[in-house]
């Protein structure tokens, strides 16, 4: 269990105001815990200074595993374990193995990446996320600022949020 935390929440109704606010708030030296949005806001990850996700690398590695596994299985089964002459071709001729190899690559890549995504994002069916503001899945963008990790006073943070265009500023303890 995590310790009790106090959050100041800035509520934003418009994604362009939010993007400006993120830069303004960070410019003032305030550390933002996370921003919760009802839909993906383009440029928000860069404004928050997040690094690019490495999920594509995971997808590639899973895909590579699929390719090699499928090729190995087919060549070993039809070429070595029980060689069969089909249509007068070589035992282990590559072209007919391509469709299954392709499908298996896609299968492993897609499943591997999605499962990795669920694990790194700590998503599971029985887990309830911390709900800062229920409107964050509806129509509001919620900027959560953790007071514990900021040296600036609460009132100062509230003022900065108001100045940068937050329609409401709330507080929540967990």
């Amino acid at each position, binding site marked *: 269990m995590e310790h009790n935390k106090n959050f100041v929440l800035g509520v934003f109704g418009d994604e362009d105001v939010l993007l400006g606010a993120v830069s303004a708030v960070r410019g003032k030296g305030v550390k933002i815990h*996370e921003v919760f949005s*009802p839909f*993906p806001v383009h440029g928000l*990850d860069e404004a928050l200074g997040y690094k690019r996700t490495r999920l594509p690398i995971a997808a590639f590695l899973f895909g590579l595993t699929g390719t090699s596994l499928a090729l190995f299985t087919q060549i070993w089964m039809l070429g070595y374990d029980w060689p069969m002459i089909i249509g007068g071709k070589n035992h282990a001729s590559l072209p007919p193995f391509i469709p*299954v190899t392709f*499908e298996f690559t896609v299968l492993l890549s897609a*499943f591997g990446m999605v499962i990795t995504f669920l694990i790194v*994002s700590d998503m599971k069916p029985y*887990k309830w996320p911390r*709900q800062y503001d229920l409107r964050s899945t509806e129509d509001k963008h919620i900027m959560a600022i953790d007071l514990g990790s900021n040296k600036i006073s609460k009132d100062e943070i509230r003022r900065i949020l108001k100045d940068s265009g937050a329609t409401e500023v709330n507080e929540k303890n967990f």
Partner: protein
Amino acid sequence: MQATSSLRETLVTGGKTVASVSEDISRQVEGAPTRLWWIAMAISNVVLLFGLYCMAYLLWNGVGVWGLNKTVGWAWDITNFVWWVGIGHAGTLISAILLLFRQKWRMSINRAAEAMTIFAVICAASFPLLHMGRLWLGFYWCLPLPNTWGSLWVNFNSPLLWDVFAISTYFSVSLVFWYMGLIPDFAVIRDRAVRMGANTRAHIYNALSFGWDGGARTWQRYESVALILAGLSTPLVLSVHTIVSMDFATSVVPGWHTTIFPPYFVAGAIFSGFAMVLTLLLVTRKVFKLEDYITVYHVELMNIVIIITGSIVGIAYITEFFIAWYGQVPAEQYAFFNRMQGPYWWAYWSMMTCNVISPQLFWVKKIRTSLVATFVLSIIVNVGMWFERFVIIVTSLHRDYLPSSWSMFYPTIFDIGEYLFSFGFFFTAFLLFAKFFPVINMAEVKSIVKSTSEKKH
């Protein structure tokens, strides 16, 4: 803060805001089902039950209860299989290929189209499985599992085996793609349920949403996953019907043995898939009052895809015919002559009328923007596409090289029953989806509301 472009049509009408998107789409999940829904469900269930009876009878007695004979070994079963797989191509095409092309009009139709894809692929898969007869042994016939004959492995050189991998991969990847899209929308319903105090619903939809939090970091990863899934699904969609067409193209049966099959089948699949999406969406938008999200402009764009793919299919028919004549192979020439003038002439000419002539009507703007005309033509297109597969399969088989084994195919009640089963299952599943899942991708539509919605004065 809303703006309207004078260059592009608006994608969401009625002056919607981000909040009204949640309200409009979640309402039907939260409310009790309508009477119309119950009536539709009852009809689908009756059809499904009759289909299940036919299926049980077939499994008990064997494939002999179908009208197949020694000459025509594939008929309605494989026709239905190819037909349903074709229909199942629209969903992933809309969500994957149109995502890569940044076509924003996909956003209000992709959810329902993907659901349709998944149910259509299940329907499709049921036919080859039933055709096996003893389908409980199917694992050994389809998958490279160790067995007591050696192990004697499955034949990886056979397009039928490629099909097993293509269809099952397509099904599972489409399912994952669809489900990934649903996750943020399940969270919307969960949070609404928490506010309404509906505890059970909140817990169910939280479990379905995997505890989605909507944080910027999660969205960043989520977008990356969606893009890569789209990139993976794009060649996958094209590979599936290509491989289905190879079931025929790699054989030596006149009428099947043609290299044009892969692109011709893929175009036909998109053609029939879009037609089925239109049939379903025109009903869905009416029943759930989604006229502001699925606009006439969306319908028109889908009709344009139908003109393009329908024309490709038409050219493929003519090319096939020309090559048969030009190639000077008597068996091949006879196969095509027999299609047009033989005992199945009515199937051939139904196919030509429905698939080649009817989509050309969409060149007229009045017709492609008319909802009634679109609905009627979308059904005609799918009737035509069923006949296309029937023509390819049955007329090529029924008169082969040996005139003494020429034969005709007559469907039995069990052929019809199994086809009805697929309809019963398809509509039951679609109705359940439309009631319990958000039928429009809320998160995606919300992201475009500001830029493409009408300004409200």
